[in-house]
């Protein structure tokens, strides 16, 4: 390697290391706080004098006022996320099949309108959405959050799945029609199997979108047994002497499922985020 090239490489390395530190410091902070005893919580040490896992025990045994419904709330988060993913995929798969494969007349318009909804920030719709759910009598129910999140995730799912679907050769559908397949059979036997990688990517997207949601969960849900863990985390801050170490331990637990999902499906995620970007 020439000195010149080594120098360039070293500079890049330096930038990389800085970005890595920048990214990792908050996570490190989160972790350190979560293993610090309450008494030392604000000692400001880089590493606690007597690190402990007691905070985790407290969280998992629901041993604090703010954690009274921890398992229920974790379940709520998971249930909402999974339901949103399943419903979004159902909507996205059916819509993209109709637009790209059945080629319904207004398909192109629907597809473009779906994209248009992204011009409106989700927060703008908070009040209308609240009013709508009130009219349906769904306020306070987890279904209100599920339906809201499906509303926000579906346009993206339709748009992306449609991009993928357009890449499947249309001759496959024609061959299947001549082989004797009905549209429903084409959907189940040809379309879904071939769309599986992009379905995984979009499903993961919807799952994480719902899992991470705070604003709408806070707005639409109220009872301690109905709220998701993200809202419960917010409640920690409703008192002056918030138990920061418990908050951080809960935060770590809350962050683990998305990390695991990202890791498991990273191959699809990367493909999913790039493949739809360029229409080849």
């Amino acid at each position, binding site marked *: 390697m020439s000195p010149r090239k080594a120098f360039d490489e070293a500079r890049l390395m330096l930038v990389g290391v800085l970005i890595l530190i920048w990214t990792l410091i908050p996570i490190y902070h989160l972790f350190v706080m979560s293993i610090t005893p309450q008494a030392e919580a604000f000692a400001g040490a880089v590493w606690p004098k007597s690190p402990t896992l007691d905070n985790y025990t407290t969280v998992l045994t629901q041993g604090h006022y703010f954690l009274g419904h921890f398992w229920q709330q974790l379940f709520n988060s998971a249930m909402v996320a999974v339901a949103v993913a399943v419903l979004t995929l159902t909507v996205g798969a059916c819509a993209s099949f109709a637009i790209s494969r059945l080629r319904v007349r207004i398909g192109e318009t629907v597809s473009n309108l779906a994209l248009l909804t992204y011009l409106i920030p989700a927060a703008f719709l908070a009040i209308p959405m609240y009013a709508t759910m009130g009219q349906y009598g769904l306020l306070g129910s987890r279904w209100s959050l599920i339906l809201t999140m499906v509303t926000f995730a579906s346009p993206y799912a339709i748009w992306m799945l449609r991009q993928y679907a357009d890449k499947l050769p249309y001759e496959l559908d024609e*061959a299947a029609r001549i082989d004797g397949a009905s549209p429903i059979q084409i959907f189940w036997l040809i379309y879904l199997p071939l769309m599986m990688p992009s379905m995984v990517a979009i499903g993961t997207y919807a799952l994480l979108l719902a899992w991470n949601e705070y604003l709408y969960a806070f707005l639409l849900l109220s009872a301690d047994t109905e709220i998701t863990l993200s809202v419960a985390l917010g409640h920690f801050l409703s008192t002056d002497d918030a138990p920061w170490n418990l908050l951080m331990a809960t935060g770590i637990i809350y962050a683990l499922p998305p990390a695991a999902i990202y890791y498991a499906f990273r191959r699809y995620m990367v493909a999913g985020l790039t493949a739809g970007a360029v229409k080849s």
Partner: protein
Amino acid sequence: MASVSVEAVRKRYGALEVIHGIDIKIPDGEFVVLVGPSGCGKSTLLRMIAGLEEISGGVVRIGDKVVNEVPSKDRDIAMVFQNYALYPHMTVRENMGFSLKLRKAERGVIAERVKKASQILGLDPYLERYPKQLSGGQRQRVAMGRAIVRNPQVFLFDEPLSNLDAKLRVQMRTEIKALHQQLKTTSIYVTHDQIEAMTMADRIVVMHDGIVEQIGSPLELYEQPANLFVAGFIGSPAINLIHGKLRRDGTRNWVATDAGVDLPLDGNAAGQDGQPVVYGIRPEHLAPSDSSGLPVTVSVVEPTGASTFVYADLSGAQICGVFAEHHGIHPGNRMNFMPRLDRVHLFDAGTGKRLAG
């Protein structure tokens, strides 16, 4: 197996009509090739027979049944596509058995038919492979296998060999023809390659701009082209076409070109004295000659080994001769091309139609 009949069939996209009333009758068991330049409507016609395009006017019958409104899946046809259209998530066995599975055939029946088809096509060793693990020729065979397990009334082929390399194309051409001789299923084959059409067809339908120019056996089209288009499309290198006026003086006939060359005709040529005509002679029906015939100056010589193509200038017109021997011809040579008079074609210069004779 069944006959196929296309009666006054039209195709319109909005106000644009691309197929202008086509009539073709295909008897049971015949191998018909639809050939023509790209955009002539041959693929569209095939897709209308397949039920993949709506029929704007006229009637398509398979057997005795009008199928205009019958969906593809109920027409009992099989189709082989240019890009194979194999299901990428299924093995060769599953690809070939898919149509039978949809028809709820028993497992034993499916296994047996797939086995039979794979033996015919030499696909036995590949049954558990996926399409991406196969070569182009093997994929093409799987596509044909998928068609023959069905034992359909009609086979439709949409330029099935276009994606193969030249050598494989010639091999598959022979295989498809052998397959047809074995199965005797009515087949309609679309191609833009006139050699494919000539070698495979029982009958050829030459299409151009949405109409049928001529229907006939390969040799009929070659020997008796109905018009200038068919004459120019069939044969390689293309027929030489020279404009001029028909002359007859009672004892002999000839065509006088504007450049003042006299092109010889035999005694019973049709047409009237002074009529503007096009004189057609295929390159392989010209012979090199020292004294008599058309005086030319050689411009390019292309030896292919088996024969030699000689391009030459005839008073401003480019003509080509194909000779079995090289004859030591070189660019710049002055020589004569002697046409075989019984092989000369005369066309009306206005309508382009063949003059009977």
